[in-house]
C-alpha cells in the first residue's frame, strides 16, 4: 500500500522521541554505580514497576502482532493473548518472590545463588543472550513496519532509528531510564487502546466500511466441458488461466491492465494481486504502486443484529460487538502464491467466513475433526510455551531486582497482570475492528491496529503510531538491559572474573548495550515482513525450554545440582532452536517445501521443555555428590 505521511504524526513522534532522550539524559547523571545501572538501585515503587512491567511486556508482538493475527485469523490470534497473560500466573505464584530473594542484577545470579558454578554462569549468559535476541528480532521488525506509514521512510530506516534511540536510552542511564520509558509507554498504550476500542464500538459494523472502500466485482462466466471460460463482460478480455491446488485463477485484461480473478461455478470473483515480472517490475493489481490501485480490504458480507439482517449495526457495546460478529459473515482475504509464465504472483482471494468460525479457534491452528495428530500437537505445544515462557524471560525477570522487597515484587506483578490482562482483552476488539472496517494492508498484518486508528482519524492514528513506536522502544530497551547485564555482569565480571571497578562495570554494560543494539538492527532488517507475534512465540518456546526447568527445579527440588542446571539449559536451548530451525515454518523462510521439513512440528515446547526437565533430573542424580558444596538458599 502507499501511505501518506501526516505532519501531526511526525510532530508527535518527534515530541515523544525528544522526551525519551531528555529523560535518559536526566537520569544519566544519577546512574553512577552498577546497582543503579543494572537494577535502578532497587528503589522503584511497586506501582511504577507494575506498569513498567506492562510496558516491558506489551511489546510490538502484543500490540502489532496479536491485533494483526486476530484481524486475519480471528480468535486464533487471541489465543496468544490468553497464553501470554496466563504466563504471568506462573511468574506471580511461583517465581516472583524467590527470584527477588535469590538474585541481585540478573536471572543468572538467581540460578547460580547456591552454587557459584562457572558452567551455570556461562550457559545462563548464553541463554539470556539467545532469548533476548530471539525477542529483539520481532521488535525491530515491528519498528520498521511502523515507520513506513508514520514517517514515510523505508523499513530499514525505522530499524536503524529505533536501534540508535534505544542504544542511547540504555547506554546513558540503563535500567533507570528504561523503567520510566516503559512506565510512560505502558500507561499510554492502555489508555489509547481503550479509546480506540470505544471508537470501534461507536462505529459498529457496516457492509460498506467507508466511502472509499473498493467495490469488489463479479463477472458471470460460462465454463464448457473442456474447461474453456467464456466471459459475458465485453470490457474484459480473457488472457490466461492457471490452477493452484483445487482453485482456478483467471487472468483478464481491461484497458491494457491485467487483473486476476478466482473462477467460481458460474462467475469470476475479483482478487487483489502483486505480480513480480521477469523484467523486475512489481505490479499491484496490474499497475505500478504509484498508481495507488492496491487498496485496503476486510469487510462484512452479512450483518445480523438481534436475528435481523441489516446494512449497518449502529453503535455496539463490548458484548454485542462480539455477538454481532459471531452471528454475521466476514470476508477475509487469504493468500495464494504461484508462478505464471516466469512471473511470481501473490494474490489474495475473497473468502467468506462465518462469524461463528471466526469467534473460536481453528482458522489458523487446525484443531477440528479433519486435523492431524501433529497439528493438534502443535497447538498444545504453542499453548504450553506461552504458559511457561513468561516466567523465564530474562528481561522480565530482571525487573524483580528494581523494587525494594519481595512484597513489592509480588504487588508489582499483580499490577502488571491487571494492566496486561485489560490490554489483552482490548486486543480482541482492536483485531476484529480491523477485520471488518476495510483497513487491512495484506502486505503487512502488523499494521492492522495503526491502520484501524487511521480509519477513525489522523489524530488518533498519529497518537497510536507514536505509542506503537514507543512500545518498541520500551521493550527493546528492556531486552538490551538484560543482554548487557548478561555480558557485563554474568560473563565478564563473574564467569571470566575480570577485575573491574564499579565504574568499569557500568562502562562494560554500556559498551555491551551498543554491541547488542547493533546486532538487533541487523536482525531487524533481515527479518522484514515476518509476523512479529509468531517470532515472539518462538522466543517464548526457547525461554520456557532453556530457563524455566532450571528455575523451577532449583526452587522446588533439593537434589538439583549445578551440572544438572547447566545441562538442562544447554539441552533446552539447543533442542528448541534445532526443532525451530528444522520446522515447516522455517522451511518456508528458507524457500523450501514445508512438507519436506525434517521435524514436522513448528512449536518446539512439547518436546524441548520435558526434555530439559528430564535432563536436569538425570544429570542431577548422576552428580548428586557435587551438592556437598551447595550453599543454603536464603530465606
Amino acid at each position: 500500500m502507499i501511505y501518506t505521511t501526516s505532519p501531526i504524526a511526525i510532530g508527535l513522534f518527534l515530541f515523544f522521541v525528544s522526551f525519551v532522550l531528555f529523560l535518559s539524559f536526566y537520569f544519566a547523571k544519577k546512574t553512577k554505580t552498577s546497582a543503579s545501572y543494572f537494577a535502578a538501585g532497587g528503589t522503584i515503587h511497586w506501582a511504577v514497576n507494575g506498569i513498567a512491567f506492562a510496558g516491558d511486556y506489551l511489546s510490538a508482538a502484543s500490540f502489532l502482532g496479536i491485533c494483526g493475527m486476530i484481524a486475519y485469523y480471528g480468535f486464533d490470534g487471541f489465543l496468544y493473548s490468553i497464553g501470554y497473560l496466563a504466563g504471568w500466573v506462573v511468574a506471580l505464584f511461583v517465581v516472583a518472590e524467590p527470584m527477588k530473594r535469590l538474585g541481585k542484577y540478573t536471572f543468572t545470579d538467581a540460578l547460580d545463588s547456591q552454587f557459584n558454578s562457572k558452567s551455570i554462569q556461562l550457559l545462563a549468559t548464553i541463554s539470556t543472550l539467545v532469548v533476548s535476541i530471539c525477542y529483539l528480532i520481532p521488535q525491530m521488525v515491528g519498528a520498521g513496519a511502523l515507520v513506513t506509514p508514520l514517517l514515510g521512510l523505508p523499513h530499514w530506516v525505522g530499524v536503524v532509528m529505533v536501534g540508535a534511540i534505544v542504544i542511547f536510552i540504555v547506554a546513558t542511564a540503563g535500567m533507570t531510564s528504561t523503567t520510566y520509558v516503559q512506565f510512560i509507554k505502558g500507561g499510554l498504550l492502555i489508555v489509547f487502546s481503550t479509546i480506540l476500542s470505544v471508537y470501534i464500538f461507536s462505529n459498529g459494523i457496516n457492509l460498506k466500511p467507508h466511502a472509499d472502500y473498493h467495490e469488489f466485482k463479479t463477472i458471470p462466466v460460462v465454463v464448457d466441458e473442456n474447461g474453456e471460460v467464456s466471459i459475458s463482460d465485453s470490457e474484459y478480455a480473457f488472457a490466461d488461466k492457471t490452477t493452484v491446488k483445487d482453485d482456478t485463477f483467471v487472468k483478464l485484461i481491461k484497458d491494457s491492465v491485467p487483473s486476476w480473478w478466482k473462477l467460481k461455478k458460474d462467475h469470476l470473483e475479483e482478487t487483489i494481486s502483486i505480480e513480480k515480472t521477469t523484467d523486475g517490475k512489481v505490479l499491484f493489481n496490474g499497475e505500478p504502486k504509484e498508481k495507488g490501485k492496491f487498496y485496503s480490504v476486510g469487510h462484512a458480507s452479512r450483518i445480523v443484529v438481534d436475528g435481523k439482517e441489516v446494512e449497518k449495526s449502529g453503535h455496539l457495546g463490548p458484548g454485542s460487538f462480539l455477538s454481532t460478529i459471531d452471528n454475521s459473515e466476514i470476508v477475509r482475504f487469504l493468500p495464494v502464491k504461484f508462478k505464471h509464465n516466469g512471473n511470481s504472483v501473490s494474490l489474495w482471494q475473497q473468502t467468506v467466513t462465518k462469524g461463528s468460525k471466526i469467534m473460536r479457534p481453528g482458522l489458523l491452528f487446525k484443531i477440528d475433526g479433519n486435523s492431524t495428530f501433529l497439528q493438534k500437537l502443535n497447538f498444545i505445544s504453542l499453548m504450553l510455551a506461552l504458559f511457561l515462557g513468561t516466567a523465564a524471560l530474562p528481561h522480565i525477570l530482571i525487573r524483580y531486582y528494581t523494587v525494594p522487597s519481595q512484597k513489592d515484587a509480588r504487588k508489582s506483578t499483580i499490577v502488571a497482570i491487571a494492566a496486561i490482562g485489560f490490554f489483552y482483552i482490548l486486543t480482541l476488539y482492536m483485531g476484529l475492528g480491523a477485520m471488518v472496517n476495510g483497513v487491512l494492508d495484506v502486505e503487512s498484518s502488523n499494521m492492522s491496529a495503526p491502520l484501524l486508528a487511521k480509519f477513525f482519524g489522523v489524530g488518533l492514528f498519529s497518537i497510536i503510531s507514536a505509542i506503537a513506536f514507543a512500545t518498541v522502544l520500551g521493550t527493546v530497551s528492556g531486552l538490551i538491559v538484560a543482554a548487557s547485564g548478561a555480558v557485563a555482569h554474568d560473563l565478564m565480571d563473574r564467569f571470566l572474573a575480570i577485575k573491574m571497578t564499579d565504574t568499569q562495570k557500568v562502562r562494560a554494560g554500556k559498551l555491551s548495550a551498543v554491541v547488542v543494539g547493533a546486532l538487533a538492527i541487523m536482525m531487524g532488517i533481515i527479518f522484514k515482513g515476518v509476523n512479529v507475534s509468531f517470532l515472539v512465540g518462538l522466543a517464548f518456546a526457547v525461554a520456557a525450554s532453556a530457563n524455566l526447568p532450571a528455575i523451577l527445579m532449583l526452587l522446588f527440588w533439593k537434589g538439583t545440582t549445578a551440572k544438572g542446571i547447566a545441562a538442562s539449559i544447554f539441552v533446552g536451548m539447543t533442542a528448541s532452536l534445532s526443532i525451530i530451525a528444522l520446522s515447516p515454518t522455517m522451511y518456508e523462510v528458507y524457500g523450501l517445501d514445508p512438507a519436506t521439513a525434517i521435524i514436522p512440528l513448528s512449536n518446539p515446547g512439547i518436546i524441548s521443555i520435558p526434555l530439559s526437565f528430564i535432563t536436569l533430573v538425570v544429570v542431577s542424580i548422576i552428580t548428586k555428590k557435587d551438592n556437598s558444596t551447595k550453599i543454603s538458599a536464603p530465606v
Partner: protein
Amino acid sequence: MLHGPAAKLGKDNASAVKSKLGLKLFAVYALIYAGFVVINMVDPNMMEMKIVAGLNLAVVYGFGLIILAIIMGIIYNGICTNCEDSMNKPEKNTEKGGEK
C-alpha cells in the same frame, strides 16, 4: 528518586507458607487453563456454544482466564500480606521498603 545500592532483604518467616499457597493457586489455574486447551483439542465445536449474552464458550472461557488471573492475584496478595504481618515480628525488621 534515589538509585543507591540494591536493597538487602531480611529473613521472611512467611516464605514457606507463601510458597505452598502459590503452588496450590498455580495448580488450580494450570488445571483451568489445561481445560481450555483440552476442550479445543477434543471438541472444538463446543467452543461455538452460546453461554451468556450471545457470547460463545471461547470468548467467555478466554476472558474468564484473564479475569481469573487478576482475581487470584489479588487474593494471593491479600493472604500473603496477612501471613507476613503475623509471622514476621516487627523487631526483626531488617529490610527497607516494607518487608518485615
